[in-house]
């Protein structure tokens, strides 16, 4: 045959171009998912501690009547924090409020704290003393230094006072990629304390007892105890982001967001496994029936019906699950496992199993049909019954195909979005060890997290980047499973001879 005519060149070029485009698509998907996932690494790691002076004997706050052992609700606490936006969580009006003067404290609170962001005490500007201090993203990764002042007012009569500190409620020190230390850098004249240095990561909350020092005028507020909080990065942003990604806490909307996607991964996997555990035995039984036993006429009727299921859009199936399946699941299981809502792990898995059936049946049937009929002849000639032929000869011969069926079904299950979105209940929690709790409870997988949260993220921000990280992970997982499934599906041991 003549390989090529000049006249054909454009068409052949087009063919090659399309081939290249197909290859490009594969590369592009990977590239752009990774490209957008890089925004996850722009993540400024937030941290924050609250400090407040307290009397050793705690009394109810005269203003709110609460015993202020929780600094989150202590309106006098000073927050030293970095890398968050907006509301600091204490009280909107106090944002950037100047350090309280003695006059303001009179009759209201016998202690004062304040802070400054300066390198040396010599730089201190009395006009720039604030109650709370926070810094923005980029400086914080290089290391930070906050200065904290603490004093009592003349209304205070006890011989000692305590500096209480605790991490901001939404910030978890053990996840923090920084070293954070608190030390005393200056004590007031005439008072000697043991040099204090506290590792705030190791001991995130506690109290330091100090001899009382009273500020007599506003100028003296900075002459009392002076602490510094020094923050130094101990991991690169990259390792810290990756480490954070593999934690077990998904809470991206927090002031200090946590992007541990393990609960999503586990939930997705477990839901898929449960769905497979239901769909594979039933589906394989059905495909065995179709491939081995059903007369041709019945098969001609059944196959289109099963294919029809494959063509019902998943969003319709999800809605069906919500309106029809979920209420009956609650009815059946409310007594047995204390299920209160149909939006649960169990419902999602059941509908997912239903979705998997056509996949399992059709790939399974193909796998069984690929077994040469000479095996069946051999078994039949030896006097095997239908069951013995299937169980001892056909199924073992089709093992690779059955494995491929399970794998491809698995990939389909972990990639399904709408059903899980509609039916899982949407709560990102680690699956409980107690299976009943897991089954009856709400859950959330990777796909629906992407679908739900993409609507509420700031584009090209860390949360957006993390959703792409999940997407990339999901892509790689399904890619791997599909490739292995493909390899298994092509494996035909009996062709070796």
């Amino acid at each position: 045959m003549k390989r090529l005519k000049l006249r054909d060149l454009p068409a052949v070029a087009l063919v090659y171009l399309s081939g290249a485009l197909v290859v490009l698509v594969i590369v592009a998907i990977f590239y752009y998912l990774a490209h957008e996932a890089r925004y996850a690494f722009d993540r400024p790691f937030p941290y924050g501690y609250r400090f407040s002076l307290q009397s050793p004997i705690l009394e109810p706050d005269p203003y709110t009547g609460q015993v202020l052992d929780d600094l989150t609700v202590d309106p006098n606490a000073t927050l030293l924090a970095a890398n968050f936006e907006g509301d600091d969580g204490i009280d909107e009006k106090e944002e950037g409020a100047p350090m309280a003067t003695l006059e303001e404290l009179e009759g209201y609170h016998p202690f004062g704290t304040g802070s400054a962001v300066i390198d040396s005490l010599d730089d201190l500007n009395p006009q720039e003393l604030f109650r709370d201090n926070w810094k923005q993203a980029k400086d914080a990764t290089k290391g930070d230094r906050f200065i904290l002042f603490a004093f009592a007012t003349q209304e205070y009569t006890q011989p000692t006072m305590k500096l209480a500190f605790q991490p901001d409620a939404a910030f978890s020190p053990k996840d923090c990629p920084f070293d954070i230390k608190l030390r005393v850098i200056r004590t007031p004249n005439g008072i000697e304390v043991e040099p204090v240095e506290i590792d705030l990561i190791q001991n995130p909350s506690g109290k330091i007892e100090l001899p009382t020092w009273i500020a007599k005028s506003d100028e003296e507020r900075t002459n009392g105890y002076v602490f510094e909080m020094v923050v130094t990065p101990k991991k690169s942003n990259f390792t810290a982001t990756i480490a954070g990604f593999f934690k077990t806490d998904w809470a991206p909307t927090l002031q200090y967001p946590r992007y541990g996607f393990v609960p999503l991964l586990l939930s997705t996997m477990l839901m898929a496994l449960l769905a497979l555990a239901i769909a594979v035995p039933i589906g394989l039984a059905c495909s065995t029936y179709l491939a081995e036993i059903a007369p041709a006429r019945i098969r001609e009727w059944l196959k289109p019906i099963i294919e029809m299921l494959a063509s019902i859009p998943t969003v319709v199936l999800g809605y069906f699950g919500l309106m029809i399946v979920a209420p009956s699941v609650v009815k059946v299981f409310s007594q047995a496992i204390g299920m209160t809502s149909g939006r649960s792990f169990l419902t999602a898995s059941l509908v997912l199993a239903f979705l998997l059936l056509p996949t399992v049946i059709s790939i399974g049937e193909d796998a069984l049909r690929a077994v040469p009929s000479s095996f069946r002849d051999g078994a039949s000639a030896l006097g095997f019954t239908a069951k013995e032929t299937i169980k001892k000869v056909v199924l073992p011969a089709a093992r690779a195909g059955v494995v491929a069926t399970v794998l491809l079904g698995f990939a389909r299950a972990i990639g399904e979005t709408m059903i899980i979105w509609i039916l899982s209940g949407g709560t990102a929690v680690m699956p409980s060890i107690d299976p009943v709790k897991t089954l009856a409870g709400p859950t959330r997988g990777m796909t629906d997290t992407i679908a739900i949260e993409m609507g509420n993220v700031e584009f090209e921000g860390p949360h957006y980047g993390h959703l792409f990280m999940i997407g990339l992970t999901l892509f790689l997982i399904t890619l791997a499973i599909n490739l292995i499934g493909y390899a298994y599906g092509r494996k035909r041991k009996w062709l070796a001879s």
Partner: protein
Amino acid sequence: MASVIGDRIPSRAKLAARDARRKLNSRLFEVWLWSMGVLITLAILAVIVTIVIKGLPAMNWEFLSTGPKEGMKEGGIWPMLRGSILLMIGTLLIVLPVGVFGGVFLAEYAGTSRLVTLVRACVVALAGTPSVIYGLFGLAVFVLLITKHTSLIAGCLTLAMFALPVIVLTTESAIKAVPESFVEAGVSLGMSKWQVIRKVILPAALPGIVTGLVLSTGRAAGEAPPILFTAGIYYSTAKLTFDLEMFKKPVANLPYHLAEGYRQGSVIPEKIIWGTCLTLMLLVLLINLAAIIVRARARKRQVW
């Protein structure tokens, strides 16, 4: 007689009992397999019948031909239906050349090197990649990088990406199913390779290719995740037009409407949602039916 088993053979009575047990066992097994087949079929029929029954009350010409009214509480779904059809046609137009030529490339030009095997495996794997991944890709590339705007064209491109692998694979296998003798006949007439492909292989493989195209576009039309971030719109008072402007605008469509209907559960009445479910299901089923008819007619014509 020097038998292999010799005198170990069990007595006739024992053997008969054993045979009876095995037969019963096998019979039960067959009944079990049969019942699974019946169970699944019934379950599927039950789902479809339920959707039809729930959706039928909403179904009428007005429902299909008018837009929503009264804060989506009344009226029909014409804009969504039209959007879905537009998305489907657009997807088909984009994916048709790339997918078919790509399939020709894999089947006829790529050869059998290791790299090609890898590419083919990757295409297979892509065909099994979750649709939400394509949604993410469409958002990153077609929306944020290129058009800066959710639009019909971004949705079509995303859905085309989603449908591409399946079409490449079905085209490839349709081409490979063309008997070698056809090709030899073409070659013996002195045709060039491309002429053989165009004049002999493609016409012979056409039914297979069309079936693959129609099936995967139909499936794409029912997928919500890819158009969630790329093409969907909730409501528009704009007049429906057919021009180039249309491609730049987001479109209402059935899967998006259902996803929104689910989210805004209190707004869109159940009846309308069921009606929308039924419409979407029928749309996809009709497309599949078309594919089945094409396949059946082609099979009748084919004699090899």
